[in-house]
């Protein structure tokens, strides 16, 4: 019985760094001794508590970027089940000890552009997304990142890049081109066996599946440091990692590395294809006879500030009047949006309806931290049936915000369908599809984000929603700050409850 040795072996296993001999030794002990198995689980318990505790500190949003987003959270569970107590699920994820001494992972880079990017785990990135330290796993396509140090990196899938800091990243696999302006000189790419320090350059690194890294200097100078080498390569030189870290000279092949221009060209093509695809699906969607109101913000009359209601059975008052707000770019270049910034920025409309069942679908982008109340939509007439659709700041949740849909009941009481922590800090700057399906006949309400149901709750009495008049993007009649700060480029209100599959399809057709 040697507990010290056993603990050493268990820890090697938990560290994920074990030799074959150690593995065999540990296996033999665990098979032969119940006491050793008990010690294994006792040791594992601390491991589990530490992992759980520190992962919960890494507050993350329903955003993408690898491990960062959905997978870490309980979201995928909630989404699969759309649990009645969805709020609790999300709470589990967001809950962080107030006395936290460990901060969330630092943000170190920005996604500048993507083209055909497919991430492992099916996440999605948009230009402008902030990336935290950690591993990016790109299966296909091109992505251009800008590190906070100023260095720019183009990744060509399949590739894995482990971002360590604003100045250091480890290339685990694939092709990477780094363009380093003088301000970021010293930017370092690591590979298994090498440390590549920029001295003012453009250089390419390729790590094939066999792990033998290649360096190609497209222009400038790179210092190569390894166990047995320390030298510099300059424009037009290339080398491969040889045995024992030695450097084997190669013929440079600059054309085999992706450039910023490649990403730009492919992204532009892709965006125009997405826009065309969206237009087709939008025209189909506009024929739905159950639409009360449909703004695509495309055929807008800029001079009169009129936003045409494209719903087939549109009433006269359903056109929106843009009281404040600016025309801006939507999800793709060439797509119109309305930008809301100040108190007066709002759209007024008179759909003239009272609905017991309704679905609200909005494509929006928040452009400011979610630290104040923001109004997506409301019916301004105070009294039973009045509705609000709001973002509600939650300071205890570290920059996360709740989404809520409120209806004033017959009794005069406001009934909230609130989802805690629905929007994390990283949603700022990304286009999101937000949906509320309210069914007063069945007393249920569901919230969706990006086609996924995040919450289903009981929702008050059978009183219809008062949609005679609507104000979009602002509270309208109050001095309290509650303006939506961001853009909206599509809004639909249906007279029926859209199902999960239908909403997921709408999201797929409309995602940027």
């Amino acid at each position: 019985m040697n507990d010290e040795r056993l603990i050493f072996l268990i820890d090697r296993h938990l560290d994920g760094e074990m030799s074959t001999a150690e593995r065999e030794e540990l296996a033999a002990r665990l098979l032969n001794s119940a006491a050793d198995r008990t010690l294994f689980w006792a040791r594992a318990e601390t491991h589990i508590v530490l992992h759980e505790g520190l992962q919960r500190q890494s507050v993350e949003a329903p955003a993408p970027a690898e491990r960062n987003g959905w997978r870490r959270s309980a979201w995928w569970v909630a989404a699969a089940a759309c649990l009645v107590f969805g709020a609790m699920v999300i709470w589990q994820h967001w809950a962080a000890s107030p006395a936290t001494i460990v901060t969330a992972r630092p943000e170190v880079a920005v996604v500048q552009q993507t083209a055909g990017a497919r991430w492992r785990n099916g996440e999605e990135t948009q230009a402008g997304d902030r990336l935290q330290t950690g591993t990016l796993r790109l299966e296909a396509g091109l992505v251009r990142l800008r590190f906070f140090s100023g260095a720019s990196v183009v990744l060509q899938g399949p590739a894995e890049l482990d971002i360590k800091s604003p100045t250091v990243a480890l290339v685990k696999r694939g092709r990477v081109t780094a363009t380093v302006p003088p301000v970021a000189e010293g930017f370092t790419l690591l590979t298994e066996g090498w440390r590549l320090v920029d001295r003012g350059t453009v250089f390419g690194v390729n790590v094939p599946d066999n792990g033998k890294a290649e360096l190609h200097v497209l222009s400038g100078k790179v210092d190569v440091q390894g166990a047995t080498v320390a030298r510099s390569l300059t424009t037009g030189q290339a080398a491969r990692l040889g045995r024992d870290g030695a450097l084997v000279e190669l013929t440079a092949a600059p054309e085999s590395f992706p450039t910023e221009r490649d990403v730009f060209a492919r992204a532009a093509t892709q965006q125009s294809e997405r826009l065309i695809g969206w237009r087709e699906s939008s025209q189909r969607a506009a024929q739905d006879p159950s639409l009360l109101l449909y703004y695509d913000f495309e055929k807008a009359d800029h001079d009169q500030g009129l936003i045409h209601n494209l719903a087939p059975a549109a009433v006269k008052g359903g056109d929106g009047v843009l009281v404040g707000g600016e025309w801006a770019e939507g999800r793709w270049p060439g797509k119109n949006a309305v930008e809301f910034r100040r108190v007066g920025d709002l759209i007024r409309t008179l759909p003239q309806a009272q609905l017991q069942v309704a679905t609200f679908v909005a494509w929006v982008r928040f452009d400011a931290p979610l630290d104040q109340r923001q109004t997506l939509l409301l019916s301004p007439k105070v009294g039973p049936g009045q509705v609000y659709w709001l973002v509600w700041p939650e300071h205890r949740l570290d920059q996360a915000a709740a989404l809520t849909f409120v209806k004033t009941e017959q009794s005069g009481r406001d009934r909230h369908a609130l989802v805690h922590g629905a929007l994390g800090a990283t949603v700022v700057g990304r286009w999101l599809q937000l949906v509320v399906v309210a069914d007063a006949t069945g007393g249920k309400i569901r919230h969706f984000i990006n086609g996924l149901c995040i919450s289903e709750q009981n929702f008050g009495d059978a009183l219809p929603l008062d949609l005679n008049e609507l104000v979009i993007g602002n509270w309208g009649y109050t001095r309290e700050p509650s303006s939506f700060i961001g853009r909206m480029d599509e809004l639909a209100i249906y007279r029926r409850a859209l199902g999960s599959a239908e909403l997921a399809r709408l999201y797929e057709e409309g995602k940027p």
Partner: protein
Amino acid sequence: MNVAATQQQVLQLFVRHQARIKGFIVSLLGDFAAAEDVLQETFLVVQRKAESFDLNGNFIAWAFQIARFQVMKAQAQRQRAADRFSNEVIEALAASAPVEPFDEAKLAVLPGCLGKLAPQARQIVQLFYQHEHKPREIARLLDWTPAAVSVALSRARTFLRQCIEHQLAGPQP
């Protein structure tokens, strides 16, 4: 009780005990990223088999059965023998795994205990558990040897285990 209601209850149980189930998987695999995939697979199987769960039974023990099988499946894909336990070992460990709910109280005292670690040890704990870097990556980042990182992690675990137990034992005079 109808099938949908049973399934709903089982999924709620999964969510409630997710930390415990994930911990089971993480401990058997010794790999955070792989554990995340196995947890998701486990969730899908739990969802599929929900109606076969007896709502009066021990959910954690039932979920461990499913998770154990998924761990074996994941392990079978690993190339290096050094990276996997035999199914026999997994069986033996799974049979002796504690099936109590995850103790949230331990998380509550964790920040205090982490605060008592030396700064460098705390940094290593963060890099490993929060950022999920492997010891050899941490070694490279900090310019340490991998062995030194492993030793520091090991010591931190021993200290933190004692500290957590101590804190939970009751208020100190």
